[in-house]
């Protein structure tokens, strides 16, 4: 029976029980790969539950640097009896099964075409520890130790990681080091290094390994957000929690201990967005973070923000919908309910980060845009970007950059008698000036409402007044096109009539797929959307190609709808590639889907022409 052989290019999957403390040990393994200079893509698959149900941690080690899910498993670390059968079945032929052989298992529990690596983890733990909780926790470190031996990974890397991780709780360092070595030695006693091996490399560079929610929270700090109102919901909770941590780190006055921020855990999502709108109205940069169900509940307030023109930022960390759906799975299925949120005629800007680095950048940018445009700006993350650590370029900030507060009329301007009409389009860009409460004793005060009113904010039921205002809001949306990050184009090596449009967490899989397709003779120009409303480039790109594949992680091709509708694009040109089973899209899937259609439509590489 053949055994898979690979260096710095294979997939290890850990199958654990939720709440068994395996997460930090598995995380250490991924980090060790990075320390060895090899790019890694790691993803948690966890249940909507606190303890006892199955969870998986999938680590793709890839010298070539592909960070999407590859699919398939080369080495399965099977620590969960509940899912044993499915886990064993998922291993690639010639792959490896690592398990705890303390209790012998009947032969039919195994496969002939895979390599079995048994280590008596329980026995080792029981011999070494008395306290059951210890036995459980150290068991995780022990199998990490064993793996480090089997995969030929430098032990020093793990030692350093342990020292760093427990820097705060010094006393925990020795026992963990002990457990690590115990695992290595016990494995060495009974097994030899396997066909999957790791070698030190230099492909990571200065990249960092961080969750999108964490990065977006840091972006909010840099973007000057001072008010955060939120309500817990997976997978957005860790964004608010990270914002709290960063504020404690960067926004507390060292002397007085005063907080230059206010974070309120509201009673629900309606109150969260209400607080955000109230703070935005009063000139503080504020945001909330939520997921699908929260987006549904916030619709009315988003409509108010649109019509009364109040800045607000919503981070939507998308999960599997509709309804409660799959709370711990990923999707891009809130596109329409965000872009067209609320009853009546409305449109809202969206930002579409592709990785944590952009979560940071767009997380900051969103506040400038919402102040500039005086409306709600959505930053559309998803569970895959938000809750998994991704390898991405480091955080950067240009210290010359200033926060753009948009059009706020000052005391001086008012005192100087500058004309103020809250909804008056003085600059022709559809964006009026606003004043903040308390600015001037007798100028600039106005009454804000979600009902129709004239350019001077006076109540009006006049049809013409209403229409003029709604038209101005369209002008403002036109202005927004110039402010939203432009799409990024990736040209095929050859001229081609085929294009692909994608966005968000699909990026890494897309990059890999493009290369594979190219190798197979299928050339595609690719355009990555970074926001809505769409810049003209998007429609130019579509016009310049015969067929455009639109890759999305939802059922109803929501982004395609948005493109057709906003650009008057012929749907016939837009071919959907949809993955929505809740697990992140893979390069294999995209490649297969496009190749299949390529075959069907006899899609041929176009002979190179001099350009």
């Amino acid at each position, binding site marked *: 029976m053949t055994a898979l052989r690979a260096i710095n290019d294979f997939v290890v999957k850990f199958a654990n029980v939720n709440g068994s403390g395996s997460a930090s040990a598995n995380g250490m393994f991924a980090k060790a790969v990075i320390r060895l200079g090899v790019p890694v893509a790691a993803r948690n698959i966890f249940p909507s539950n606190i303890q006892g149900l199955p969870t998986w941690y999938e680590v793709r080690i890839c010298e070539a640097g592909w960070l999407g899910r590859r699919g398939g498993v080369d080495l399965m670390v099977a620590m969960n009896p509940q899912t044993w059968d499915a886990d064993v079945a998922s291993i690639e032929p010639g792959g490896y099964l690592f398990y705890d052989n303390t209790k012998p298992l009947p032969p039919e529990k195994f496969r002939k075409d895979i390599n079995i690596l048994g280590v008596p983890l329980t026995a080792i733990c029981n011999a070494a520890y008395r306290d059951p909780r210890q036995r459980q926790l150290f068991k995780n470190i022990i199998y990490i130790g064993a793996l480090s031996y089997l995969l030929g990974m430098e032990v020093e890397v793990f030692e350093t990681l342990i020292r760093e991780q427990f820097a705060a709780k010094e006393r925990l360092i020795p026992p963990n080091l002990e457990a690590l070595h115990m695992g290595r030695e016990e494995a060495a006693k009974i097994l030899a290094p396997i066909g999957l091996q790791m070698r030190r490399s230099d492909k990571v560079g200065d990249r960092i390994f961080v969750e999108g929610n964490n990065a977006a929270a840091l972006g909010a700090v840099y973007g000057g957000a001072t008010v955060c109102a939120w309500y817990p919901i997976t997978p957005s909770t860790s964004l608010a929690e990270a914002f709290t941590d960063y504020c404690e780190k960067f926004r507390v006055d060292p002397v007085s201990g005063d907080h*230059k921020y206010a974070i309120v855990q509201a009673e629900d999502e309606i109150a969260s967005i209400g607080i955000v709108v*109230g703070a*935005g109205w*009063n000139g*503080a940069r504020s945001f909330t973070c939520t997921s699908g169900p929260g987006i549904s509940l916030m619709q009315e307030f988003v409509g108010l923000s649109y019509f009364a023109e109040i800045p607000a930022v919503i981070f939507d960390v998308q999960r599997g919908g509709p309804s409660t759906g799959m709370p711990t799975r990923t999707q891009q299925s809130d596109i329409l309910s965000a872009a067209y949120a609320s009853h009546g005629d409305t449109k809202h800007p969206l930002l579409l980060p592709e990785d944590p680095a952009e979560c940071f950048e767009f997380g900051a940018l969103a506040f400038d845009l919402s102040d500039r445009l005086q409306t709600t700006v959505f930053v559309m993350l998803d569970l895959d970007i938000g809750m998994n650590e991704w390898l991405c370029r480091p955080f*950067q900030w240009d210290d010359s950059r200033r926060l753009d507060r948009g059009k706020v009329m000052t005391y001086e301007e008012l005192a100087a008698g500058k004309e103020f009409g809250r909804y008056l389009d003085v600059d022709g860009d559809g964006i009026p000036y606003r004043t903040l*409460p308390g600015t001037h004793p*007798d100028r600039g*005060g106005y009454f804000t*409402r979600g009902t129709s009113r004239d350019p001077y904010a006076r109540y009006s039921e006049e049809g013409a007044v209403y229409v003029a205002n709604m038209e101005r809001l369209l002008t403002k949306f036109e202005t927004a096109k110039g402010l939203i990050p432009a799409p990024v184009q990736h040209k095929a090596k050859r001229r081609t009539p085929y294009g692909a449009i994608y966005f968000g967490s699909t990026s890494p899989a897309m990059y890999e797929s493009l290369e594979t397709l190219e190798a197979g003779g299928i050339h595609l120009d690719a355009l990555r959307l970074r926001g809505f409303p769409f810049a003209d480039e998007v429609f130019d790109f579509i016009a310049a190609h015969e067929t455009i594949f639109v890759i999305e992680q939802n059922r109803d091709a929501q982004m395609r709808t948005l493109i057709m509708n906003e650009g008057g694009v012929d749907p016939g040109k837009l071919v959907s590639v949809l993955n929505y089973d809740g697990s992140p899209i893979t390069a294999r899937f995209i490649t297969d889907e496009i190749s299949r259609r390529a075959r069907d439509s006899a899609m041929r590489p176009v002979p190179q022409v001099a350009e």
Partner: protein
Amino acid sequence: MTYITKPRLHHPLLKPNGLGFTRRDYEGKVSTLCAGCGHDSISAAIIQACFEIDLPPHRLAKLSGIGCSSKTPDYFLGNSHGFNSVHGRMPSVLTGANLANRELIYLGVSGDGDSASIGLGQFAHSVRRGVNMTYIVENNGVYGLTKGQFSATSDKGSKSKKGVTNHDQPIDLVGLALQLGASFVGRSFSGDKAQLVPLIKAAIRHKGAAFIDVISPCVQFNNHAGSTKSFDYVREHNAAVNRLDVILDRDEITVDYAPGSVELVTQHDGSVLRLRKLASHYDPTDRISAITNLQEHQAKGEIVTGLLYVDPEAQDLHDYLDTVDRPLNQLVDGDLTPGSGVLGALNASLR
């Protein structure tokens, strides 16, 4: 249509207050409410109260939900910023506004439908958070703007204009506010300006969540026999526990009072609440007995009014959050953006 600005409504219009503002400076647009609507009297009381405590009009922000009552902020303090938000959500919008700038005064105006029906949750949570605000419910026991349906404060057994009887238990916002930890709780009647104006003054000067339930008859839909929110009914069943005067600073107090008859409560900002007891032994600083007293009178069908509870030591949400004194909406780049300097270490910790 009633004109709050009708000169004869308040004289002398031109006598300025401590800041040199006349009462006119505290007025707003012409009311579009029905002639005789209780809400207009409350607007007049707010104007009076703000004038008397020398409030710089633009330092107060008016927030409301949706309803006839929620329209009224357009009819007073015309130079102040106002926000007529969405139905039942004023408390969250006010909370956000308050977080953005702790220096302004926040006046929330709502209706019984707005606060007790759709808005009950937000009412309760804004109160328990100790948001520094004056929260006034203009309570007429009906949905005025949608033409007279029962609201959640309609009493069980009370009859609608069409003669339908209400079966649901009423929600008494005063009782809830007391339970939820409001640090200032009062009730009054739109027809009793002498009682209402000082209550509003005290509430505005109070630090913490101040709630005032003002029974405000809807002459259009709920002022008939069988209603428990009609002018007649309220007059007949009004049980005031005390009479309040607000003295802006301690020194003004010269005379001493016969022990027991009068209680003086000094608020956080130095303003003194002088309470003449009407119900003997009523102690407005005892929350539990306030609750009991309320329940007992309610059982007798009486409407307890006056300053029902005050905690002069109360803290507010900003105290709990340790926010800086400088309003958050005035912090500048330097305060907010850590800059590139710290990113090196941060990035390193993520490798």
